[in-house]
C-alpha cells in the first residue's frame, strides 16, 4: 500500500481527491502528463493546489506549467494524445474554455470521426467554475450545455470528492476526450474517501437517494442542495429520489427514465442558466418517452437568464437556491 492509498482511508476534499486521482494515474501510466497554468510545484502546484506535489514526484517534463495560452495548451494536449499519450490539460476556469473552443470542439471532439477512426484524442480537460465567490460575470459560468451539444466529447461533473476521484480516473483512461468540471466554491468541503484505484464508469447516473414520489435529476454542486431538500421534504412524508448524473454526455437517460417511470414526477436542477440548458434535453426526453404517464409537468430549476452578477444578494439568488429547488418540487407534487 503506497502513501496515496493509505491517505484515502480518511475523509478528504475535492482538491485532495483530484490530486490523488492524478497521482494514481501518473504512477500507473507514463503516458499521463499534465499541462496547465501554474500547475508545477515551482508555481505552487496550481492556483488552489490541486496539482501540488506532482511535479516533484513525476518531474516537470510530465507536469508542465504553461504560458497563458489556452489554445496552445489544448493543442499540445491534442497532439500528444493522438500519438498515444493521455494528457490532462487544465483550463483554469470554465469561462476560459471560450478562448480554446476551437481546439476543443473543432479538433479534440472531431478528430476521431474526421480521421475515420485512425486517430483519437484521449485528453481530459480539467476546469473549474461555480458562483459564490463574488467573481462576477466572467469567472463562474457553467457551460456544459455547449459541450454536451458537441458530438465527440464527453462531459463529466462530479458532486463529491469520492466521485471526483473515480470519475477523474475514468476520464483519464477513457479513449475519448473528456471535459471534467470541478465546482470551485465546494472544493474544500470534505467527504468520504474513495476506493483507491477504482474508476467510476462514465455515462452512468448514480441513484444517490432512492425514493418513490418524485425524481430529482442533478449534477455537480446542486446535487447536495437537492439531497438536502429531499431530506427536508421526507419529514413531510415525501419520498424524493435523487439522481446524480455524474456524466452529462453521453447522457444516461435509461436510469432517468427508469426512475421517472416509477415516480411519474421529475425536476431537473443545475447551476447553469436554465434556458437552453442541459435540463431542457432531459425534460424533452422524459416527456417523449413517458408521454401520458407523468402526473405533473417536468420542473426545471437553473440560473436566471443573466450573466453571473457580482453583488452578493444577486449572486445568491442567481443560482438555484434550496428555496427555488423546494418550490419546484412542491409544484410538481401538487
Amino acid at each position, binding site marked *: 500500500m503506497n502513501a496515496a492509498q493509505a491517505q484515502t482511508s480518511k475523509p478528504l476534499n475535492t482538491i485532495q481527491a483530484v490530486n490523488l486521482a492524478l497521482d494514481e494515474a501518473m504512477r500507473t501510466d507514463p503516458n499521463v502528463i499534465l499541462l496547465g497554468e*501554474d500547475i508545477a510545484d515551482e508555481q505552487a502546484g496550481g492556483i488552489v493546489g490541486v496539482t501540488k506535489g506532482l511535479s516533484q514526484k513525476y518531474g516537470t517534463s510530465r507536469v508542465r506549467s504553461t504560458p497563458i495560452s489556452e489554445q496552445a495548451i489544448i493543442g499540445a494536449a491534442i497532439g500528444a494524445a493522438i500519438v498515444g499519450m493521455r494528457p490532462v490539460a487544465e483550463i483554469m476556469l470554465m469561462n476560459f474554455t471560450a478562448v480554446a473552443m476551437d481546439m476543443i470542439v473543432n479538433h479534440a471532439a472531431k478528430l476521431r470521426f474526421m480521421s475515420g477512426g485512425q486517430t483519437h484524442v484521449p485528453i481530459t480537460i480539467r476546469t473549474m467554475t461555480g458562483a459564490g465567490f463574488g467573481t462576477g460575470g*466572467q469567472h463562474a459560468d457553467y457551460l456544459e450545455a455547449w459541450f454536451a451539444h458537441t458530438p465527440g466529447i464527453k462531459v463529466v461533473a462530479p458532486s463529491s470528492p469520492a466521485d471526483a476521484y473515480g470519475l477523474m480516473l475514468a476520464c483519464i483512461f477513457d479513449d475519448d476526450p473528456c471535459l471534467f468540471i470541478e465546482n470551485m466554491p465546494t472544493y474544500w468541503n470534505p467527504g468520504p474517501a474513495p476506493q483507491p484505484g477504482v474508476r467510476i464508469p462514465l455515462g452512468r447516473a448514480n441513484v444517490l437517494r432512492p425514493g418513490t414520489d418524485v425524481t430529482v435529476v442533478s449534477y455537480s454542486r446542486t446535487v447536495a442542495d437537492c439531497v438536502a431538500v429531499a431530506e427536508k421534504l421526507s419529514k413531510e412524508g415525501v419520498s424524493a429520489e435523487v439522481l446524480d448524473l455524474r456524466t452529462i454526455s453521453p447522457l444516461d437517460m435509461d436510469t432517468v427514465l427508469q426512475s421517472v417511470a416509477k415516480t411519474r414526477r421529475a425536476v431537473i436542477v443545475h447551476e447553469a442558466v436554465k434556458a437552453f440548458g442541459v435540463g431542457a434535453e432531459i425534460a424533452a426526453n422524459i416527456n417523449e418517452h413517458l408521454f401520458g404517464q407523468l402526473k405533473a409537468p417536468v420542473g426545471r430549476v437553473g440560473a436566471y*437568464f443573466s450573466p453571473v452578477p*457580482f453583488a452578493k444578494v444577486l449572486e445568491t439568488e442567481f443560482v438555484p437556491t434550496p428555496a427555488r429547488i423546494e418550490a419546484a418540487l412542491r409544484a410538481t407534487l401538487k
Partner: protein
Amino acid sequence: MNQPALPSREILVDIYRRMTLIKQNDERFLAVIKAGQIVAPYYSPRGQEAIPSALSVSLTDQDYICTIYRGFHDMLAKGVPVRMLWAEVAGRTTGTCKGKGGPMHITHPQSGVMVTTGIVGSSMPIANGLALAAQIRGEKRVAVAYFGDGASNIGAFHESLNMAAVWKLPVVFVCQNNGYGEHTRYEIATSAARISDRAAGYQIPGITVDGNDPLAMYHVARQAIERARSGEGPTLIEAKTFRFQGHVFGDADSYMLKGEKEAAMARDPVPAYRKWLIEQGHATEASLAKLEEAINAEISAAVEFALSSPVPDISELRRDVFAQEVLS
C-alpha cells in the same frame, strides 16, 4: 535620445497625487477586506502606481482605456470617482455598475474607463475598437490597452497588435510587466527577452521602460500617445514593475524568488518619487502632506458612502441583460 524637457511642476505633482490615491486606496482596501467589511476578490496593483499615473496626465476624459482585474490603479489614475469604485466593490447600487459588475468589471464612461475585463488578453482587441471608432469619426481620441506580461503570450495580443498596426489605429498597448503571471515567473512562460521585442513583428515602435520611474514613464507614454493622436499608429510599451501583494489577496507568494519582493518593496516607487519631488524642489513636505490628507479624507468618505449604500434589488437580474427587461 536627448533627455526630454521636464514636465511642469503641476504635472509632476499631479502624477504624485494619482500615485498616492492608488497607494492609499490599496492600503485601505486591504484593511477593509481583512476586517471583513467587504468580501470580494482583490488583485492589488500596489507597486505599479507610477505606470498609469505618469501616463494618464497626458490623456483627457475623451480618451479611452481598457484595463484588467488588477486595474484599480489604471482606473483611479484615469479618474473613476473613488466612492463609486468603493460602492461597486461593495456591491451597492451606487457603484459604477450598480453592483452588478464588481471589481473585475468596473466601467465608467465619463472618465473614459470603457472596459475592465477578467479574461487575460481581452483588453487589447476591444481597445482597438475604441480607437477604430475614433479613427473613422476623425476624432483625436486615443485608446490605451493595459495588460500584464503573462497576457503577452495569449493569441489576442498578437491579433490586436497586428490589426492595430495594419490599420494605424490610435492605440497604445501598455504591458505592465510585473515579472509574474499568477504564480509563473516571466521566463518560464515568455520566450522574448523583452516583451517590447515583439513590436518588431508588427513594424511598430516597442519600448521597454522602468515603469516605476514616473519621469521615464511619462516621456515614453507621452510620445506614444502623441504618435497615436497624430495618426501614426500604435506603440507597444513594456513598463517594468513589480506587484507587492502577490497575485490575489491571500496569495502566499511561495513561488517568488527569495528576497525578490522585499527588494522591490524597498524600492517602493511612491515614497521614492515623493522624496525626489521634495529634493528637487517641485513640492514641499507640507504641500504633499496636505494632499495626502485630502486623499485620505476622500477615501474615508468613499468607504462610508459605499458601506451605507443600498444593495441591489433581485429584479436587477432581469435588467441590463438586453435593452428590454427579461420577462421569463
